[in-house]
């Protein structure tokens, strides 16, 4: 039956837990495109035969292949589009620099889309007024207090807190820091917000 490979692509993505990005299945895409080429050529040939030899009985078969072509296209586009949505989420959840392990899962074109998205977003945020605009990828949770207790989950190094003052973020050290400064590091998994 046709479109098996296309279904495999869709299933593979659907299986990945919400939002996770599996490796880009370049081979899968290539195989679907090859199947489409073969289907199209068979149809071209049958269409010619139907015209020249009056074989209108070939029409259902031509339709059958055409449906398969449409299906292959749908699966491919949906696969690629859903991956873009997951990549978009990475900008919001990870920040603008992605860990290499994740980049490894993206195709070159996907990386380019990510970079273009990043740039558009940055331009938009800068335009929001004031000196540098507004970074709306911060402030993801409503603020309850100015300062929060954080525990360091991995060695990070010096971290500037106020004009001049800085703290050394060593694994397992705990600090009482301004909330707005810590948010990004918490989201990235460097610090942990400790509730008292």
């Amino acid at each position, binding site marked *: 039956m046709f479109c098996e490979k296309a279904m495999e692509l869709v299933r593979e993505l659907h299986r990945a837990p919400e939002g996770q990005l599996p490796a880009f299945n370049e081979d899968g895409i290539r195989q679907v495109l090859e199947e489409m080429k073969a289907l199209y050529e068979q149809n071209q040939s049958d269409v010619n035969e139907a015209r020249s030899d009056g074989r209108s009985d070939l029409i259902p078969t031509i339709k059958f292949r055409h449906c398969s072509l449409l299906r292959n296209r749908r699966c491919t586009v949906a696969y690629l589009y859903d991956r873009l949505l997951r990549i978009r989420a990475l900008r919001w959840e990870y920040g603008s620099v992605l860990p290499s392990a994740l980049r490894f899962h993206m195709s070159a074109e996907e990386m380019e889309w990510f970079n273009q998205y990043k740039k558009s977003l940055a331009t938009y945020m800068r335009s929001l007024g004031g000196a540098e605009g507004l970074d709306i990828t911060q402030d993801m949770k*409503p603020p309850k207090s*100015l300062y929060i207790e954080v525990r360091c989950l991995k060695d990070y190094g010096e971290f500037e807190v106020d004009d001049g003052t800085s703290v050394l973020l060593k694994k397992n050290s705990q600090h009482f820091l301004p909330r707005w400064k810590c948010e990004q590091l918490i989201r990235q998994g460097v610090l942990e917000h400790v509730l008292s």
Partner: protein
Amino acid sequence: MTEELHLAGQDSDGESEEVVLTPAELIERLEQAWMNEKFAPELLESKPEIVECVMEQLDHMEENLKRAKKEDLKISIHRMEMERIRYVLSSYLRCRLMKIEKFFPHVLEKEKTRPEGEPSSLSPEEFAFAKEYMAHTETYLKNVALKHMPPNLQKVDLLRAVPKPDLDSYVFLRVKERQENILVEPEAEEQKDYVIDLEEGSQHLIRYRTIAPLVASGAVHLI
């Protein structure tokens, strides 16, 4: 802080006028716009004047904080307030961007076919963002897949592929200004349409489509 802020607005005749707001009123307007945007299924009218004024307000507050003495207890309170406002503003703008990306072909089409005089759902910057998003996505799909497909299959109409916002989804609202004779259309063929009045202060669960214009005019607030 009791300075007044000047906000370009419209009076009940739709005429442009400058509305003078206190900072507290401005923040209330921001919070209202935020709630409406959060709960409305479609992208609402853009409020660049609110965004601009709030940003100015935040800058102003930052300036004041810099000038204040380090030990001044008021600093904490003002900083908290700033954080709160920044959170609401960021959340509001994030919500809008999310809808713009989710419905990008429809948002752009609506802007393209917008009748003159009707307010835009997109600020100029959001419009630029949306256009770029569309261009990048179209180019990507074309280069990676579509241009390698058979000739008659290379065009995918994103207006049809990307779903539209569901205006028939249900929303909760509180009535700010009494409304009479709101026509509620039936959902199923056997039902008839009927008319309701919305009393001030009352709360309802209703299909968004029915009350969309009332959200735009401020007669109801989504909750």
